[in-house]
Structures are given as structure tokens and as C-alpha cells.
């Protein structure tokens, strides 16, 4: 058992034992309260640059699935590789059992050079992050000297996006998906509904493309860093092609519409966020992973708040009054998480037809 430490920017230390890779790392330390779904979460590009703390203590139980592909996407993951910079858990399960598992979580992390620490009081760590807000931190094993790096200063979206467009062929209707750090499940949601998907890099100029709808994907970091795409979206707002923004995409949509965004103290990262649909008695349980939010008070006359968070009343979605423009702060594609809001894809595809 090799020891490992997490050191936060306020100097606090959490010691435990190493699993995965033994390489040192640094990043923004965030927590997720989901109880299942580490293969999906770890490959979610929205976690780019972050050290993920899982509050559920038992991790690794069902191993990690293999690299089977379907529609040219890794079938069991949300992107091509592990995106988190590091992983902090309480009780790592060295043995796993599941019919679909091919390797252990630790082996998978070793293969991708991602370090992990177990035997950490993740509840205590979470409380600290909740009280003080998200902090930078580093994982070290001996006394390696590495300095803290704030991933939000980098262009994370550029790091996780693709270089050139990829087409996923299905039916006649075509969705253009702007990849800001997209989860594979968003593509799957459209392929399942028999739409072809054109996945384009984050800074791709799509303003003149002939498509039936545009999806602005989720992704890591501060939406205000996404100037290029905000400009492209602004152009599209004068047209009538349906637009769906998911998570970061919703924030980009809001920024393009002239509203403001801000950083949450410690973000929403879980599979149990209640979202109220404004003007109704309906509440949906959603999967979320974001550190920034739309300031609904700054929305212009043409826009309405669509969903709000049942816990802290922050904005969870916006929609345009007359045009088919929608933004959801949560993840309708779930994975991992509840599929209560999958109907958003139906609603959006209906707008495209």
C-alpha cells in the first residue's frame, strides 16, 4: 500500500493510499454525490482538469467495461479517455465482479496515467469544499514538488473538443453538434431517434451550414472562455433553426442571448438534482455536472426561465418565447443518472421536423 496525499490550496491535507497511477497531478477539486456510474463520470469531458471526489464510499465494485464500439463511439463510456485529473474515494474495491467488466478501475486508471487515492474521509473533504467553495489541489505520493494549476485559466474546451468534423450517419434529418467536450450519450440520443449527427469542433463556423438543428454540447470550465462559439450562436439567434444547449451549451446560449453567467460556490455534481419546470407542478430528477450557472435575472424580454433548481433555486434551463431555442443546465442524456428529462430530445426533434 503506497501512501498518497491530497493537498488543497488552503493547505489542508488528506492522506490515504494510492491506486491507479502513481503520477502526481493537480487540478480543481470538485465532488460528485452520485452513487453509481464511475466509468461514465470519469470519461465525461466536463470534468477536464478536475480532481473528482466521490462521496459514495464504495467505488470500483463492478470494474470497468471494455472498449467495444457502436456507431463509432465507445459503447460504455462518454468519451475516448478518462478526463478527470485524479480521483479521491473512501473505500476502493480491489476486487470487482460484473458480467460486463473487463478490468479493474485501478488498472484502467493506470493505463491512462490517472492517479487515485482511497481511504480518505470524502465526507469531510466534501464539507470543506462546500463551506469554502471549490478549491485547487494536488495529489502527490512522496514529496514531489508540483505547483497548483487552475484549469479554468486554460481553454479547456479546446482541449477536449475534436479537430475536424465527424459525421454519424443515420436518417435524413441532420443535427449539427458543437463539441465543447461532448458526452457520447448526446450523440446516441439523436442516433436513437434516427437523426444523423454532424459533430464539429468547438470553434467551427457553422453559421452557414444547412442543418435541421443545432446542439451546443456540455463541456468543462467557464462559458465566457468560449467567445468564438458565442459569436456563432449570436448569428444563429436571428434565424429559426432549432437550437438546444446542454449544460455549458445552455450557458453559451444565454451568453449569446445577452444574459450573464457566474461561478457557483461548489457547483452541482450529482444524479439527484430536482428541477422544477416553471409554471407547473412538475419536478424532474436530473443528472448534473457544472460549476457555472446562468443568471436568470439578466435574461432579456424574449427569454424565459424554463427550469429552476429545487434545492437552491438557481437557473436550470431557459427557452425563447417565440423561437425554437432551448437550454438545459442539466443532462437530459443522463448517463450516469436518471432519464426523467430525456423527453427534451423528443421535444427538440419535434421542433426540427
Amino acid at each position, binding site marked *: 500500500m503506497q501512501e498518497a496525499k491530497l493537498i488543497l490550496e488552503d493547505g489542508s491535507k488528506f492522506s490515504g493510499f494510492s491506486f491507479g497511477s502513481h503520477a502526481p497531478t493537480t487540478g480543481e477539486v470538485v465532488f460528485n454525490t452520485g452513487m453509481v456510474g464511475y466509468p461514465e463520470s470519469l470519461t465525461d469531458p466536463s470534468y477536464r482538469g478536475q480532481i473528482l471526489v466521490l462521496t459514495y464510499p464504495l467505488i470500483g*465494485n463492478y470494474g470497468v467495461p471494455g472498449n467495444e464500439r457502436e456507431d463509432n463511439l465507445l459503447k460504455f463510456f462518454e468519451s475516448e479517455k478518462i478526463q478527470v485529473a485524479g480521483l479521491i474515494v473512501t473505500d476502493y474495491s480491489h476486487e470487482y465482479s460484473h458480467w460486463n467488466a473487463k478490468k479493474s478501475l485501478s488498472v484502467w486508471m493506470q493505463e491512462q496515467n490517472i492517479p487515485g487515492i482511497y481511504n480518505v474521509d470524502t465526507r469531510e473533504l466534501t464539507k470543506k469544499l462546500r463551506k469554502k467553495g471549490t478549491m485547487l489541489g494536488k495529489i502527490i505520493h512522496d514529496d514531489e514538488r508540483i505547483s497548483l494549476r487552475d484549469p479554468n485559466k486554460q481553454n479547456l474546451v479546446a482541449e477536449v473538443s475534436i479537430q475536424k468534423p465527424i459525421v454519424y450517419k443515420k436518417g435524413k434529418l441532420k443535427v449539427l453538434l458543437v463539441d465543447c467536450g461532448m458526452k457520447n450519450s448526446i450523440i446516441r440520443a439523436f442516433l436513437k431517434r434516427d437523426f444523423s449527427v454532424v459533430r464539429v469542433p468547438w470553434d467551427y463556423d457553422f453559421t452557414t451550414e444547412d442543418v435541421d438543428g443545432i446542439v451546443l454540447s456540455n463541456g468543462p470550465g467557464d462559458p465566457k472562455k468560449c467567445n468564438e462559439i458565442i459569436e456563432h450562436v449570436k448569428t444563429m439567434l436571428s434565424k429559426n433553426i432549432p437550437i438546444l444547449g446542454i449544460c455549458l451549451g445552455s450557458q453559451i446560449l444565454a451568453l449569446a442571448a445577452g444574459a450573464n453567467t457566474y461561478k457557483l460556490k461548489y457547483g452541482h455534481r450529482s444524479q439527484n438534482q430536482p428541477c422544477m419546470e416553471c409554471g407547473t407542478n412538475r419536478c424532474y430528477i436530473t443528472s448534473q455536472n457544472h460549476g457555472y450557472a446562468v443568471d436568470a435575472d439578466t435574461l432579456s424580454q424574449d427569454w424565459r426561465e424554463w427550469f429552476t433548481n429545487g434545492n437552491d433555486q438557481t437557473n436550470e434551463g431557459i427557452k425563447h418565447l417565440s423561437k425554437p431555442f432551448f437550454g438545459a443546465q442539466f443532462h437530459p442524456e443522463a448517463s450516469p443518472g436518471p432519464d426523467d428529462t430525456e423527453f427534451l430530445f423528443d421535444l427538440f426533434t419535434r421542433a426540427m421536423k
Partner: protein
Amino acid sequence: MINHKKPKWKKILLLGSGAIRIGQAGEFDYSGSQAIKALKEECIKTILINPNIATIQTSDYLADKVYFLPVNASFVEKVITKERPDGILLGFGGQTGLNVGLELAEKGVLKKYKVEVLGTPIQAIQDTEDRELFVKKIKEIGLKVPVSKAVKNVNDAVAFAEEIGYPVMCRIAYALGGLGSGVAHNRKQIVELTKKAFSYSNQILIEEYLGGWKELEYEVVRDQYDNCVVVCSMENVDPMGIHTGESIVTAPVQTLSASEAFKLRSISIRVIRHLGIVGECNIQFALDPQSEDYRVIEVNARLSRSSALASKATGYPLAFIAAKLSLGYSLTQVQNIITGETSACFEPALDYVVVKFPRWDLHKFKRVSVRLGSEMKSVGEVMAVGRSFEEALQKAIRMLDCGMNGLVCNSLEFSDLETELRKPTDKRIFAIVEALKKGYSIEDIAKFSKVTPWFLYKIRNIVEIETKMKRYTLAEVPHAFLKEAKQKGFSDHQIALLTKSSEPEVRKRRKKLKIIPSVKQIDTLAAEYPAQTNYLYMTYNGSTDDIDFKQKHQVVVLGGGAYRIGSSVEFDWCCVNSVTTLRKLKYQTIMINCNPETVSTDYDICDKLYFEELTFERVLDIYEKETPLGMIVSMGGQIPNNLALSLHEVGVPILGTSPQDIDIAEDRHKFSALLDTLGVDQPAWKELTSLETAEDFANKVGYPVLVRPSYVLSGAAMSIALSNMELREYLKKASEVSKKYPVVISKFITGAKEIEIDAVADHGKLYCYAISEHVENAGVHSGDATIVLPPQRTYIETMRRVKIIAKNVAASLKITGPFNIQFIAKDNEVKVIECNLRASRSFPFVSKVFKINFIDLATKIIMGKRVPPIDRSAFDLDYVGVKASQFSFMRLKGSDPILGVEMASTGEVACLGDDFNEAFLKSLLSIEFKLPKKTILLSTGPIESKTDFIKSTWILKTLGFTFYATKGTADFMVANGIPVEVLHWPLERKEPNTLTYIAKGKIDLVINIPKNIEKEELDNDYLIRRKAVDFNVPLITNLQLAKRFVESISQVTLSDLKIKSWDEYK
């Protein structure tokens, strides 16, 4: 928009679940109490029908009116006629409440009296309860159910089984706890199973057998606006094929991928929506361990044992919220009481793991099968919380209080491990441990047991630590390894056993190394939001405490642990009442308990709730953190009572009677010496260490004698021996008799009455008391006896002597608080047979009959508060209370349904009446005793009891009953001029046979008074009794009870039973 209108109902009727029995236990006290609280908040009047007098829900401060009456359609209709409620809640009284509700709806009673069913509509209940409808409904939305067919006779069952191929599963519609269900591997088995099943139900279901699939449960909530949340997911460690009530269960699910876990969640929501449930339901799934293939097994459209567990496991108050949703609220309008900040419309995130473990008491029963299967046999359960599976599992095993030190460090032996793994018994988890030690591979164990390997790996981790720990002495154990062992749930005692040291030494060493547990909160949101919660547990997988320990004036009340035979909801009532009084006295209260079926573990009951082990180590851990003023050990039954002295010795202040005095009452020798000095008589007894001395003693005092083995793991029970031969037989069977394990033999006095006193004393002065008498003669365990208060047939002189003895005992033991003494009385001679310096099982009964809360008073006295003297006239009642015991023999296949010195009942009811007969009949009906209409099968035992019963037989004849009897009894009856038809003994295998007549429903009541003679005759009697139980024919096996029953039905008829609420008895 959200509708803020107040609910329209003014008066709502709530159906309770009646006596505690296997399959339906204390969880419904929790759910009913929560429902009443939810209704009270809305200023709606509540009417409760529940004969379970020991429940919290039947307290005077909860429902507006309480009826201690049978929960059946005829009584409920009468209450409806009288009370005219405008709404009824059916989902809070278990299967009993649901079935009665359905019957009332089907009979048109609810419509006639304009009683609206709140929450889940009747149609949805029918759709979930009727297997055929259920299957149809689930298929309508394209979901998978096991291939199955409802059949109405044995031939069709066989035909379908052969069509889909054996093995097949047989299930009964409308059954609680899987009653009558089973697996048939061939034609013979299916014929046997279905024949029996058709005696309770006219419809059974034959379905594909999914043994070995993973079993999962989801708890789902829906409001009338169609908002749905899945509050908890649970995974059974035991695979399909073992009833979920018999399974070790974890929350949340452990071995499912996100895709599987959320797929089942989606299905749950589709199902609850399609069925139209409003409130709460539980959905059971089977999941193929090799793919994502699944089956929806069943839906319970009501609060259930699993929902109580889910509530405690997550902190989400399911019953309370279900009640609010029934009133028309939306999930978003109800607050999350735990965080105080967020709404109930969310799904709890756990940052700990929960393990539920069932408690069985199978050794209490003669001839019972110990194999686990699709029928429930467990009598209670515990829930352990930890931050590693190993930690939670070992805690859970200790919480069971079955003499196990945890998963390992137990002395159990298995002769045939593979069979133990393949055909599980209540000891299976220990068989897995043994198999690992013997070198079985995880693959083989998984193959035999069908337990998912992940759980086996975790068990192996514990076994490996055990092995490694043995290599060290305590001083040598490395710091990190000691910590690891604690993190994997090892107790100080286990470590002491392994390192050949002592528990105090281990404690000292680990504290020196700063290995101490942390206190963590259960907050429903995994620390995402700050929470006000007082719901706590302890773990070694943590570095800091969630709370500070600044409170002053704290008092700890130790709870009763798992429900079991002998300790059940009564002690929970005592604990809750004690805590309630302490709060009124402005103390900060701390409750420690580990039973998810209780009200005492509702976090609104106390100021702090530790869901924790009731062990010396853990209680002391809590004491050291919290430094309370003291602990009350007299409310939770025997577990806290047993901890008193050891806690006292390490300096924990024990409130109430001093632990040394408790010890005098507990120690047979000391107590006997005390009685001698007080000049109080007791049956002759002696502790003996060899067979010869035992025989000598028995011959000296004369047979019969009562034989009490010291408690060893073989689980030998108490018994009565009539002769040297029996004594020898028994001692051979029971255990080794040695200096280490002596046996206690006492003179058994025949034909004596049994009397109890429940009392409270203040510094040795008797403050208040209740004397009650048993209907059955001494020899029937007091927990099984029918108890009458105030006594109707006890001499005044006897009562006077009982009181004087209680006074003297109280004075000499300086009792402060509750106590109970049991006596036998014959011809005004009174002998003491037992004394407990704690609350007893009958405290709620006497408190509610007298309307004087003994526990409230005892708590005040314990805390040194002044209590005014009680007006003597308060004990002068114009009515009678009768407590009757509920047995669960039907569920315990093969068990001999007979009363004896070992307690066998699982619960009790009590009813009030203007006289004994009325209260007695009500209480019998409350334990679902069906009054006979025409025919009675008699077999009245030895000649003395035949003679004794002949007068009763005459009365029965006058009442128009006709008789069947076995040869001896028939001869005796004919000689006395009573016409009777003779039936052959079972083993004669000749028709007309007793067994055939019982099976064919030709007999309404079996009175079978056992004899203690020849083996063959014993077997014959057993077969008759068992058949009666298997075919749901009422059975009386006690002569005194039979006589009183005959007297009562001759004097009171059903229509004489008055519909009076508790407050109408003045």
C-alpha cells in the same frame, strides 16, 4: 400552478396491522405513527383501529380515537357506521390493512358510507394484488414479468408447470411475506404445495423459477401531479429464491452498473405511473447476473418492511410523505425535514452503506425446518450503517445479539459445507466464512450459493484480516493494521480474541494510538447541503466528527435492538415514552438503537439518534464523545439491562436502580439468597454440573422438573421433564453438562396459576403497580399466556401477598424505576419465579388499560422528579383488558404449534371489554382466530384433562356443535353421553382420518390437549396440530384456554361485542 388549498377531509380512518407476526412487524407502527403525525399537522381528525396495544400509534396523544378492535371487515364496518369518517388510509397497516380495505371496497361499504380512499386508488391496489391483473398491467407497457399463469386448481398447476418445465415457483395472491409460496422441482412437490396453497387462496400463480438471479428493490414515490422519485435502491446479498425478508440487504445497490441501476429506476417510474399509485410503493426486480435482462417480480402498493428500511437507510421519511401525498399535496410542497432547506422532491444520495440483517429465532421451535426459501421465517431485523461494506456487515451481525462476535471469531461448525452453501439456513453467511477458510474458491462459493462474487470478496477481506491478526500479540499489531481491522468492522472483543488479550486492553491500546470512531450524520444529500440532522452513526472510515459535543443535560436511553421472540414493540413503546418524558423534563435526549422497524429510531423522537450497536464497546464510545448525565437501561429490555453492570464498572452513570442491585436480581444465586432472607418462597432449584447430580436432585424434589440449560450456541431450549428417562434424554440432547455449562433444574409445580406484577418504585418504595393473572396455568411462558387485567379469578389474599412481596423486593433492592415480578400461586401460596428490574413486555398493556403511563412515571422518578401519589380509585376499573398472544406457526414449516416453557409467540394484541368474556373474544378475533360454526375435533389429552373438559363439552353440545374425536376421547365422551364421530389417528392411515377431515375443511376448530407419553402418540398429536395450522383451522392446545373459550362463547355472541373506543372505557 401549485395548489395551496387545504385538504378537504375532516375525519380519516387509519387501519393498523394488528399483532406483530412473521412478515408483518413493527414497521407498521412506524408507518402508522408517521401517517397520524402528517394528518395531525393538517388538523384532520384521525380514527385508528389497531388491537396492537403496545404500539406508539395507539398512544393517547396521537390519533384522536383509538379502537383496540380486530382489523377485519366486519369490525371496521361497525366503526365506520359509528364514526362516519370521510376518508380512509389503507397503505399504512401492512397487508392486513390493505386486504381489509379491498374487502370493504368490494362489498360496497366504503361507497355506502361515502368514505373516500385516499392516495393509491382501489383499482391500483387490485392491479398489484391480483397476480393475473398485475401481469396484464405490466405487459401493457411492454415490460417483462416472469412467465406465469394463474391457476385455480391443482391439475391446472401441474399442467402449466410441465409446459414451462420444472423448477417452477408457486405464489399465492394476497399474501403477506410470501406465505404458502415455494419452489417445486417435480410433480410430487407441486401437488403438495398447491394443495396446501388452495386452502388459503382460490388463486395461485405458477411461474418460471428465477433462482440465482440478483434480487433488487426500489422504493418509489409518486404524487398526483405525476412527479416521481425513487427514494432508495436496495440489493439483496442473497439471490432470488430467498424471500427478501430472509435476505441480507444492502442500500444502495452495490454491484449494478449505472446503466442497470438507472434502467431499473426508469422501469420503476413507468410502473408506478401506469398503475396510478399516489403515495409510496415498493417494486421488486430480478436481474440476470449475466446480462441486463430483468423481470418485474412484484409491486406492493403500500408502505412495507422494505419502505421502513428505506426510510431509515436514507433519512427520507417515506411514510410521512406518502401520507401528505395522499392528501393531495405535491412532492415539491413537502419539506425535506432532514435538511430543513430543500423539498421532498429529490432522491437521497447516501455517503455510507447500509446492511440489513434478518434475525431468526428458529431454535425456539420444535421440529421446524431451518432452510431459508421463498417464505419468510425471520422475526426481526437490524440495520447497520458504515463506510465500508465489511464494517457495516460486522456491525449488523453483532447487532443481531445472537452470540456472534461479528462475521468471524465465532465457534460454529458445519458438517457439510457444500449443502450449507447450496441450501441456505440462517447460518449461511458463516458457512461462507468457513468455506473460505477451508480453501473453497470464490468461484465455487458463488456457484453453490449464487451470491454475487463482490460480496464474497468483501467477506474474504474480513477472513484475511482475522488470519493475519492471529499472528500478533496485541502489543505487536502494527498501528496501520489495527486501524484497518477497525475499518473493516472488527470489534475490540474480536481483536482481543485473536490476539489473546482482553477487550479493555484492546480499547486502551487503540485509544492510545488515537484509533477512535467518528460520528457522521445521515443527511440525505451526502453533505452537498448543510443539514440540521440529528441522525447519526459511527465509523472508523472517517477522520472527523460531523457534530460538536457541547450539549449539556443529555440523557441516553438504550433501545431494545432487533425484534425477536420475547422482545418486541413493547420495549420500543417504553423507550419512546421514556424519551418523550425526558424531553418534557427539558433534558437533551440521545437514543441508541439499531432496529429499522421501530418508532424509537425516528429522528423526530429524540434530540440525537445514534443508529448503532448496543454493545459495551459502542455505547462506551458514544458515552465518551457525548458525556451525558447518564444512561437509562431499564426501557429497552434485556440487552441494555445486561450492559448495566459493565458500563457502571467503567464509570458510566446508570440512572435508576443501581447496577449492583440489578445484578442481584439477574444472578440466580444472589436473588435466591435475597428471597430466603425476605422469607419469600420460591420453587426448589439447584444448579448442577453432572447428569447424576441432576437426577438425584430431580428425584429428591419430585418430577416434573423444569430444566434450563445455560446458554450455549447449540440453542437448546428450556423444557419440562416428567421422568428420569426424559431428563436424561433431554440433557444428552441439550448440551454438555459441565462445570462451565451447568444446568439449572427447578421443581415444576403443576396446576398452579401464574400472576405478574408490573410496578414502579421510588428509592425502594413501591409507587404504583398492576397485578395481572394468566388464563393458562403455569408452564406456559408468560410471553405466550393470555393475560387478564385486573385479575378476575385470583383470590384477594393472593393479590395481597403478591403486593407485599413486591414491596419487600423493591425495598431490599432499592429499586428506582420499573420492575416486574412473576409468581406462581396455588391455594393462596405464592412463589416467586422471576424478577426483572426493568420494564417488562406488559408495561404498555397495563399502562393503557389503567390509563396511567407507568413509563412516564418511572422516568420522572428515575430523574429524581417528584410525582404526585396516584389516587387508588384509578386502579378501580369498570372494564377488563385481555392480552392475547399472536403465533406465527403457520410460517414456520414443520414447527410444533404447542405452548410450553419457551416463548413462541411473535406478538400480541389486547382488547377492552365490559367483562372478561367480551374482552377475551375480541382479543381472540384480533389474532385472527375464527369462531367455530358447527364442528369441533376433540382430542383432550390425559384422563385428568378429559374429565376436566367434559363440562365444557356439554356446553358446546348445547350450543349446537357436533364433534369428531380420536378414539380415547371419543370413548370417554360416549361414556358421558355425548354423541361423537370417531376419526382415526394420523398414523393409523385409515379413513375417516383426522388429517383428511382437517384438510377438507370439515372441521372448524381443533382442540388438542397434548399428552406426554408414548412417542407414537406424540407424533399423532403433532400431526393433527400441524395440519390444523397448515390448513388455517383454529387450534387450541391449552386446557384452561379451551375452557375459558367455551365459557365465553356460551355467554357472549359476536353481536354483543361493543364498538367502543379506548376513551369510552372510563
